[in-house]
């Protein structure tokens, strides 16, 4: 079983600190009084970056066979992407609501 021997503990600590830094950036962004949408997209993309690092290194998908990556990512993304079909109705709900 390919273990996480490819990375030493110290490099993991480095990654952990890196992730923490990204979180702090998110917090700082939160207080820049950005428009909600801009804030949402920026923190979401940062969160995706974090998730990617976490999956690749902490869960060391990077050191497994590529097939694992190509199994779990498409499946999960597939669901996320197509759940987005609900947004048009969310916005309609805002404009068509009966009692404003």
């Amino acid at each position: 079983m390919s273990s996480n021997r490819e990375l030493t503990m110290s490099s993991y600590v480095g990654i952990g600190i890196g992730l923490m830094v990204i979180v702090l950036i998110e917090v700082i962004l939160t207080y820049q009084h950005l428009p909600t949408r801009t804030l949402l997209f920026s923190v979401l993309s940062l969160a995706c970056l974090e998730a990617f690092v976490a999956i690749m290194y902490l869960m060391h998908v990077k050191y497994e066979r590529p097939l694992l990556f190509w199994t779990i990512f498409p499946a999960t993304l597939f669901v996320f992407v197509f759940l987005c079909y609900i947004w048009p109705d969310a916005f309609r709900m805002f404009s068509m609501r009966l009692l404003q």
Partner: protein
Amino acid sequence: MSQSAIAAVTHHEVVMEASPYAMDKKKLGMWVFIVSDACSFAAFLFAYGYMRVGAPVWGTPFGFSSILNGVVMTAVLLSSSLTMLAATHASQTGEKASAGKWLGITMLLGTIFAALHLREWFKLIAEGWRLFYNPAGGAAQFGAAFFSVTGLHLTHVVTGVIVLAFIARGYRQGRYDETHVETAGLYWHFVDLVWMFVFPLMYLMNAH
């Protein structure tokens, strides 16, 4: 290779087709579980987004203290991920004692995270937030979304701590081997990973 596995192989040779992932089946199973669990969390978060987009007014209740609390929680959970890695690492190099120690620390950090989170919950409840009531005015869905999403995550954390306790015990007694520790580790990292989305979406997006 763990003693039980060696014994098994010598006792009962079964030549199998190679696993296309070349990994232990428990790990593969955990990955499949993670895929489905991620989708479940996604559904919760999409429901929250839908509520929020559709709401005419959406209150943002969190002051800086809550955000700070959240940052500390994130730090705790992240470091627990690192200690979990240390445990896995130790178990793979056969240092049973240190692996057990690191597992203990991970459980401790997990518990601290849960405690901090519950403190936040009780603070909100004391301020009058409920699943169905929003004291600050604005959509009543905030309480519903916040408590259900973070509640689900909290359940995962608590479950994780309990599972780790069982694994640690079984590992010390030699009933479990390093693959069990590694599999539990995968779950723990996943809980951490989910928090990386819950924190910005539930806390930062609701900071005033």
